[in-house]
C-alpha cells in the first residue's frame, strides 16, 4: 500500500535576499485529496507551490515529495520524480512554436519510447480528458481562448499520468461559466485518474466547491489547514477577514453554509 502522505513539508524557510517569505512552515498533503492553498497577496503561495513541484529550493527545512527528500536528493534522482508530478502554470506556459497536440506530446516524446503514432493518439486522448474539442488540437497557443489554454495546459500536465497535479490559479481570468466548468473538470480528473491535486487560488468559489482541505498562509506559515467549512470560524484575524468579508460570506451562502 502506498503511504497516505504524498507531500510533507517541515520547518520550511524561504528567503529572497533579506526578505523572509516562509519561516517554520509545516504542511502535509494526503494521497487523493484536493488541497487548496490560499492567503493574501505576497503570502508566498506560489513560492510554496514552486518548492513543492521542484522548481525552487527552499533555504532550509525539509520537503518530501512522494517519499523523496528533495533537498538532499541529487539532480539525477529528481528527474524521475518530475515525471510523477504535473504542473499547470498560471498563464499556461504552452510552447508557442508548437500546436496544442504537439505541446501535449512533448513530455511523452521526451520520456517514453512509445511509437509516434501512439503518442499522437495519447495526446488527443489527454486533450479529450481535459475537455478540449478535437478541433483545437491543431491550433497554436496564440489562437486559443483563456479557458482553452488552461485546458490545454492541464492536458500537458497530465501527459505522463502524474500522481500529483499542481495547479497555479486555475480559474484566474476565466469567465464564471468557464471557471465553473474548470472546477468540475478538476474534481472529475481527480476522481477518475486517482490524482492528488494541490492548487493555489484566490477564487472563493473554487475553494468551496473543489477542495477537500484548505491551507491558509499567513505570517510566514500555514495558519490553518482544515476543510473550508471550518475556516470562517477560525479565530485568526486574517482568515476572518478573508472568509467573512462580503465576498467570503456571499460564496459561503451560495455553497450552502449560511452560518457566520
Amino acid at each position, binding site marked *: *500500500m*502506498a503511504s497516505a502522505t504524498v507531500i510533507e513539508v517541515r520547518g520550511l524557510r524561504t528567503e529572497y535576499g533579506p526578505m523572509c517569505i516562509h519561516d517554520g512552515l509545516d504542511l502535509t498533503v494526503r494521497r487523493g485529496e484536493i488541497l487548496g492553498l490560499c492567503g493574501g497577496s505576497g503570502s508566498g503561495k506560489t513560492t510554496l507551490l514552486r518548492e513543492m513541484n521542484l522548481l525552487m529550493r527552499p533555504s532550509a527545512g525539509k520537503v518530501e515529495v512522494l517519499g523523496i527528500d528533495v533537498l538532499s536528493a541529487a539532480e539525477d534522482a529528481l528527474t524521475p520524480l518530475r*515525471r*510523477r508530478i504535473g504542473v499547470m502554470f498560471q498563464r499556461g506556459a504552452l*510552447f*508557442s*512554436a508548437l500546436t496544442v497536440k504537439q505541446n501535449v506530446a512533448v513530455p*511523452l516524446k521526451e*520520456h*517514453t*519510447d*512509445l*511509437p509516434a503514432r*501512439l503518442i499522437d*493518439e*495519447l495526446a*488527443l*486522448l*489527454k*486533450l*479529450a*480528458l481535459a475537455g478540449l474539442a*478535437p478541433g483545437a488540437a491543431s491550433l*497554436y497557443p*496564440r489562437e486559443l481562448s483563456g479557458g482553452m489554454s488552461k485546458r490545454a495546459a492541464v492536458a500537458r500536465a*497530465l501527459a*505522463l*499520468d502524474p*500522481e500529483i497535479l499542481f495547479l497555479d490559479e486555475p480559474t484566474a481570468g476565466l469567465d464564471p461559466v468557464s471557471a465553473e466548468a474548470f472546477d468540475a473538470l478538476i474534481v472529475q480528473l481527480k476522481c*477518475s*485518474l*486517482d490524482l492528488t491535486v494541490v492548487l493555489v487560488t484566490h477564487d472563493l468559489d473554487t475553494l468551496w466547491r473543489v477542495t477537500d482541505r484548505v491551507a491558509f498562509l499567513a505570517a510566514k506559515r500555514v495558519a490553518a489547514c482544515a476543510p473550508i467549512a471550518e475556516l470562517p470560524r477560525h479565530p485568526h484575524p486574517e482568515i476572518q477577514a478573508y472568509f467573512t468579508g462580503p465576498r467570503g460570506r456571499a460564496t459561503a451562502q451560495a455553497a450552502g453554509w449560511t452560518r457566520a
Partner: protein
Amino acid sequence: MPRRTIVETDTDADVTAQAGTLYLRGAWTTQHLGGLVDKIGTDKIGALIAHDPRNGDPLHVEAGGLTALDTAGAWVLYGLLRGLEARGSEARIDGLEDGHRALLDLVRDRAPPSLMGQRPAAPPRPSDPGALGRLGRMTMAHLDEAHAITAFIGEVAIALFEHVKRPARLRTRALLGMLERAGVGAIPIVALLSFLLGIVIAYQGGLQLQSYGANIFIAELVSLTMLREFGPMMTAIIVAGRTGSAYTAEIGTMKVTEEIDALTSIGIPPLDLLVLPKLFGLVIALPLLTLVADVAGVLGGMVMAAVMLDVGFQDFADRLPQPLVYRSFLIGIAKAPVFAMIVAIVGCFQGFRVSGSADSVGRKTTVSVVQSIFLVIVADAAFSILFSFIGI
C-alpha cells in the same frame, strides 16, 4: 486501492496467448509500454491469437496479472480489445480491478471520435509548385518585404518630421541610454578589431611595397583604405551584429508580449518611443565609433610598419596631413550615418515583423542581421560608384 503504484521494480507490460485466453501481465503504464506496443501492433494481434484452435470463439482476457494501469495503458488495452472485436472475437475481460475497469471505461467514453475507426485523411499537402513556381513565390515574398520596409521608412520619416517640429518631445533619457549601450559599449570591440585589421592591411600591403622599395607609402595605403572603406564598413557590420540584432529582439519580444499594443492603447506611438531614440542614437554613435575605428586601424598599421618595414611612427605620422587623407577621412565619416540608418531601420523593422511565437523572434533577428549587413555593403558599393561618377 492504489491503482497506479509506480514502483521502480515494475515489470514491463506484456500479453501472452494460451488456449483461448490472453493473459495480461506487468505494469501497463506509460513508462513500461514500449515493448508491448511493438508486439501488438494491429497486424500482429492476428498472429497472437491465430494458433489458437478455438479462434473465433469468445476470447477470454485474463487481467489478473496486471499490476498497474494508467491512461496510456488503458488506451492500449482498449485498442487491443477493439482489434479483437474487429476480428469477430468478442473479448470478455476478467480479473480487472474496479479502479482499472473505471479507467478503461473512462478512456472508452472520452476517446475523441477522430481516433475511433478510420482516421480522417490527412489534409492534402499543397502540391509542389515546381522550380518556376518557387521562384515566383520567393520573388513575391521579397517584393512584399520591400513594400513593407518602404512603408516603414515612410512612417519613420513622418514620425521624425513630427519630432523636428516639436523637439521637446524627444525622449532624451532613452536617447542617452541608447548612446551608452550602442556607442560606448561597442568601443572596445570596434577598436580591437580595427587595430587587427590595420595590422593585416599593413602586413599584406607591406610585402608588395617592400619588393619595390616603396616602404614609406605604407602610410597612404593604410590610411586611405582604413579611413575611406574599412573603418566605416567594419564598424557598421559590428554594430549590425551587436546592436541591430538587439533592436530586433527587443521590439520582437515586446510584440509577442503585447507590450506594443499596450503602448499604442496608452497613446504612446511605438515609433516615437522605440524607433526614433534608436535611430538618433545610432546616427550619432556610428560616426563616433567610425572615428575610433579609424584611429585604431591606423595605429595597427603604424605598429606593423615600424616592425616590418622600418617606417618609424614619426615618419608614418608625417605623411598623414595631406588633402587626400583628409578627403578619405571625411568621406568615410560621411558614410557612417547612412549605415547607421540602415542598421537601425532594418533592426526595428524586423522587430515589428515578429509574429506570435518565441521562435519567430529568433528567425527575425537572423534576418535582421543578414539584411542589414547586406544593405550596408550594397550602400558602400553605391557610394563608390557615386563618388567615382562625381570624381572624388
